[in-house]
């Protein structure tokens, strides 16, 4: 089974989020970049599925040369080879077109993404890729098993869950529960250096949207503390002041 895993290079979870150029660009000064945590779940699942010679795992990421460190980490975790599309990821539509373009010529049985990236929080790339390739997709899966040509997926729905089957090839977005996140071991880190990382040039994609500006949320006011012996006070504050009950 040939598996393609889409990796996003994102600021570390604990990064302070600030902007430059009059709040139009993310300020990456001093920011550590990591493999998007949801993509790590996708990668870990792919490695499990391919284990014991049952398949190969290719990771793909759209980014400039600074993305290589993150891609090497995915290789160290256990991917067999990697592709970097040499472009600044403009938006999800741009990224999806690059991935679909590569996937079209390389016949993958399964394409995995994380359910969303922790920077722009879209759940777009996976379904875009599936739509361009005209294959089925599930955007947020909680469990995934593959048998022959069929994927069985458990996905969350409001107030419950749904189990569905789909034919491969398909694109599946992974969330918690699909796989335990793997971390690179020493051997992985050593071999990652010699695994192939191919760089390809992007294709042209029409731009349909762009980010005009960013804002950071207004800081909440200072907390109003209520005495533990006086919970009735909290109830009346929630009713009269916050008007939420």
């Amino acid at each position, binding site marked *: 089974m040939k598996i393609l895993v889409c990796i996003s290079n994102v*600021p570390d*979870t604990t990064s302070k989020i600030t*902007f430059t150029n009059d709040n139009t660009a993310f300020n990456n000064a001093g920011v550590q970049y990591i493999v998007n945590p949801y993509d790590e779940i996708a990668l870990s699942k792919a490695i499990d599925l391919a284990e014991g010679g049952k398949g190969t795992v290719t990771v793909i990421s759209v980014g400039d040369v600074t993305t290589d460190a993150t891609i090497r980490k995915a290789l160290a975790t256990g991917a067999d080879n990697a592709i970097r599309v040499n472009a600044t990821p403009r938006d*999800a*539509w741009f990224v999806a077109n690059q991935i679909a373009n590569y996937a079209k010529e390389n016949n993958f049985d399964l394409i995995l993404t994380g359910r969303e990236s*922790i920077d*722009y*929080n*879209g*759940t*777009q*790339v*996976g*379904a*875009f890729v*599936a*739509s*361009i390739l005209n294959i*089925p*997709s*599930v*955007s*947020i899966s*909680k469990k995934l098993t593959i048998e022959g040509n069929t994927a069985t997926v458990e996905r*969350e*729905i*409001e*107030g*419950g*869950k*749904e*189990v*569905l*089957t789909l034919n491969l090839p398909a694109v599946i977005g992974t969330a*918690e*529960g699909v796989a335990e996140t793997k971390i690179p071991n020493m051997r992985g880190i050593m071999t990652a250096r010699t695994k192939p990382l191919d760089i390809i040039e992007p294709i042209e994609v029409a*731009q*349909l*949207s*762009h*980010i*005009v500006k*960013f*804002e*950071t*949320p207004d800081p*909440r*006011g200072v*907390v*109003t*503390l*209520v005495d*533990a012996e006086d*919970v009735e006070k*909290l*109830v009346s504050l*929630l009713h009269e002041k*916050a008007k*939420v*009950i």
Partner: protein
Amino acid sequence: MSILVYVENTDGQFKKSAFEAVSYAKAIADQSGNHVIALSIGNVAEGQLNLLGKYGATKVLNVNTEQLKSFVNQAYTAIIVDAAKSIEASLIVLSNSFSGKGLAPRVAAKLNAALADGAIELPTGSGDNLQVKTGAFSGKAFAFVALTSPIKVISLNPNSFEIKESDIAATIENYDPSIDAADFSTIVKEIVRATDKISLPEAEIVVSAGRGLKGPENWAMIEELANVLGAATACSKPVSDAGWRPHSEHVGQTGIVVSPNLYIAIGISGAIQHLAGVSSSKTIVVINKDPEAPFFKVADYGIVGDAFEVVPKLITALKTYKGL
């Protein structure tokens, strides 16, 4: 030109998020001189369909076949795209629900439309430059996305837009699109819904607890508190990782992001990953025995105290308030 709203039903009933989407589309339509056409797919009775007029739809396209009773991504995409083309929609609005997250990009891709997912306010601007505010960086920022294509798609976050009544009598029209058999390759095998529970992503009030509760056997009081408030229950990541509560209750960076009117956090310290999932809540109440817990820094109201003493008292006080 018109605005198409895809309204999602659960077992034939529309939920609040569907009415939010219609109200949202109606507010945009009022600004731009358009009208709103709703599209319902599945087995929905006329009484429910009529409700859509009340929130601003002038017409309801009703696709009602047994085959489409449960959600099939590609088939639903095909129907929405077909309807959008037939009414010459310039904008398609849908809920940013679990199914909506799968649908919106596919619909946008088929229509060469720009997509803003997770809108939290009415857009500004008009025509080929509509600007939509969405969350970014996991609750730590907002992004304003300009949609510059002729056709646009917006998915609306639950609890982000207040329902408004419009008092329109909608006409209901049966709609029978042709769908390719290949669009049914995905097969739903099983749907399990806890009917007695309130769905977490859409809940207006969420009661959430963390490791401070010491063990799964202590969740009865959390459930009782939620019950009194008509709230959904949630938990922190360590709690779901330990198997005390299901993953579907985990709120935070790698779990569910919620934006209720009221979020009550009990025995949760407030790690940055957890805060990412709750920061857009309108009011946050924190109950924690550690006065230094970081959660107090982002809370509106707080009680420093032992959850095992405070929560039962709070349940009693709320019951009195509600006359229960």
